[in-house]
């Protein structure tokens, strides 16, 4: 593998321009092969345990079935004109220089085989149209490079035909799963969720114990008994949040923020131990059946608890699934209160509380931070928020600006609809892909470095569990502390003043925000 450009201290070298195109390094990431799933990971998902003897026939048939069922997939395979607009859009290409990480090349790994078996020209004149047979080498190459795509869709924004590499990557993983070649990280997690209700494998007793501990922290900090309810029947709001919010830093700080906001708003809310996960890795592996099964738990929990509303916590791809697909996957949600968005994002809830003036804020509590915001790919390019178009960009920024005095955006080519993936999305947030994750984070880290130099930005906020874990792991490689990544609701939590809460500076006036 080509060596990564490194500084003397071993940290990856950052250029001046986050969009800088690297020198081509053919095969640079050809040996990055994420761990394959064992039979006990594949079988609970309905896939063969290991590579089938007749894998070739099954794979070709599956490809045909997907092209038949999913018209978008077929159009994506048929329409590429090789214009090259996407070639420099992928963070993994920018980070590795491997030309097979150019979106068009990634698509062609599958397209070339599709042509061979499903087009006239490819059947009879394969060499003329770049069609190739499906061999074990091709299957291995799919596994390698379709697990170097985080399905972030940045390339799709630049494609004049709207070809979405994420869809092709999902289909490729679905074909691989159908012949018994699954990825350990995703499949182990989905199997665990089916057993325990969440990706972590947290049982109800352990979850309640964790929440008790956090309630203690909240009371120590504020002097107020702020509750984090679990499995409360008849609560108004069911909060669905990534299980990382019960485990990792800075995710937990975000959870404390949600609890403070709900407490301040005076609403009744609950978590569910049955649906204790917002993440839906069924999307990453392109499996409609698994995505549906994971989503169905949310519907079931909402019904069992008799809630009126569903609110989602900070999780990027969960919000894409929730916003864009939940109704078709697990709807109709006619049993919920139709006066509220179904589902609602926690940021929408919090912004309403801020704008109405109900939430008391002391922005100066965040004065030690100079913030920027990393738009999470699935939120940016797969969903919306609030009442206005582009709300998925404006709502998080409005909340951040309401709770922080110091805020600067990064390079416009790297935020909003042009945002880069954090480098760990789409089922790649696994330790065995750490080298790829570090390289894939390079464009974002370069853009961050720019605002650090220009405006003294010290911290970056995100609204996705994957982004938060990825950055806390890779930022130290780029010279930032691991806690330079923050939850948006962590900043909210810092700034909220609850009714009756004694503050350190009791004589200072408390500003009530109305943006």
């Amino acid at each position, binding site marked *: 593998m080509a060596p990564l450009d490194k500084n003397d201290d071993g940290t990856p070298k950052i250029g001046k321009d986050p969009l800088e195109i690297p020198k081509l390094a053919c095969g640079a990431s050809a040996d990055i092969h994420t761990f394959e799933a064992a039979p006990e990971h594949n079988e609970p998902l309905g896939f063969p345990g290991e590579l089938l003897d007749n894998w070739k026939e099954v794979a070709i048939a599956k490809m045909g079935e997907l092209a038949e069922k999913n018209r978008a997939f077929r159009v994506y395979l048929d329409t590429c004109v090789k214009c090259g607009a996407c070639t420099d859009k992928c963070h993994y290409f920018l980070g590795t220089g491997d030309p097979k990480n150019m979106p068009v090349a990634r698509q062609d790994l599958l397209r070339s085989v599709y042509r061979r078996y499903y087009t006239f020209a490819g059947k009879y004149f394969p060499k003329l149209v770049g069609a190739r047979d499906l061999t074990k080498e091709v299957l291995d190459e799919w596994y390698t490079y379709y697990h170097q795509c985080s399905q972030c869709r940045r390339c799709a924004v630049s494609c004049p035909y709207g070809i979405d590499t994420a869809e092709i990557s999902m289909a490729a993983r679905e074909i691989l799963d159908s012949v018994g070649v699954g990825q350990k990280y995703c499949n182990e997690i989905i199997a665990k969720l089916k057993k325990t209700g969440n990706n972590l494998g947290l049982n109800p007793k352990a979850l309640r114990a964790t929440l008790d*501990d956090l309630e203690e922290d909240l009371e120590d900090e504020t002097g107020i008994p702020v509750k984090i309810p679990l499995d409360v029947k008849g609560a108004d709001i069911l909060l669905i949040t990534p*299980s990382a919010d019960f485990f990792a830093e800075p995710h*937990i700080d975000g959870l404390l923020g949600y609890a403070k906001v709900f407490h301040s708003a005076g609403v009744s809310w609950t978590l569910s131990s049955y649906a204790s996960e917002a993440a839906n890795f069924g999307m990453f592996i392109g499996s409609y059946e698994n995505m549906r099964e994971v989503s169905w738990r949310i519907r079931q929990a909402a019904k069992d608890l008799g809630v009126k509303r569903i609110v989602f916590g900070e999780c990027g791809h969960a919000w894409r699934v929730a916003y864009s697909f939940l109704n078709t996957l697990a709807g109709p949600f006619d049993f919920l209160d139709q006066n509220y968005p179904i589902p609602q994002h926690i940021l929408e809830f919090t912004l309403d509380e801020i704008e109405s003036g109900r939430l008391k804020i002391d922005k100066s509590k965040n004065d030690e931070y100079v913030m920027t915001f990393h738009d999470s790919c699935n939120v940016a390019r797969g969903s919306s928020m609030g009442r206005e178009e582009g709300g998925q960009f404006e709502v998080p920024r409005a909340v951040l600006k309401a709770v922080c005095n110091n805020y600067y955006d990064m390079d416009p080519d790297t935020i909003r609809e042009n945002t880069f993936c954090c480098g760990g999305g789409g089922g790649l947030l696994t330790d065995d892909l750490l080298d790829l994750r570090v390289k894939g984070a390079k464009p974002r880290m370069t853009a961050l470095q720019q605002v650090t130099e220009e405006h003294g930005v010290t911290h970056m906020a995100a609204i996705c569990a994957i982004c938060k874990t990825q950055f806390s792991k890779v930022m130290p490689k780029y010279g930032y502390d691991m806690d330079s990544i923050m939850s948006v609701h962590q900043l909210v939590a810092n700034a909220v003043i609850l009714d009756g809460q004694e503050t350190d500076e009791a004589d200072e006036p408390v500003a009530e925000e109305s943006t």
Partner: protein
Amino acid sequence: MSSYEVNGQTVEADEEGYITNLNEWSEDLAKVIAEVEDIDMNEEHWAVVNFLREYYEEYQIAPAVRVLIKAIKKQMGPEIGNNKYMYELFPYGPAKQACKIAGLPKPTGCV
């Protein structure tokens, strides 16, 4: 799959070095795993490992990092019971690396 050799016995582990049969854990094995991880076990490392094992026994899962730190803080004081120090003890993270040494399953998910 990988494995560890301890006192003449072979203990199976997965690709990432987490043992597959949790009953095969022993203090000697912990020392062997720690060596592979380039960690020289001292009293503080053992305090973390022991707490993780006790917690796991009660809840069948590793505690959140914050819960771990709070417990160590109570036991050994704030100089040791803090996030920064935990990462000095276990550079690859107190959750994953310490779990591996304690013979517990790897925490999975977006963590």
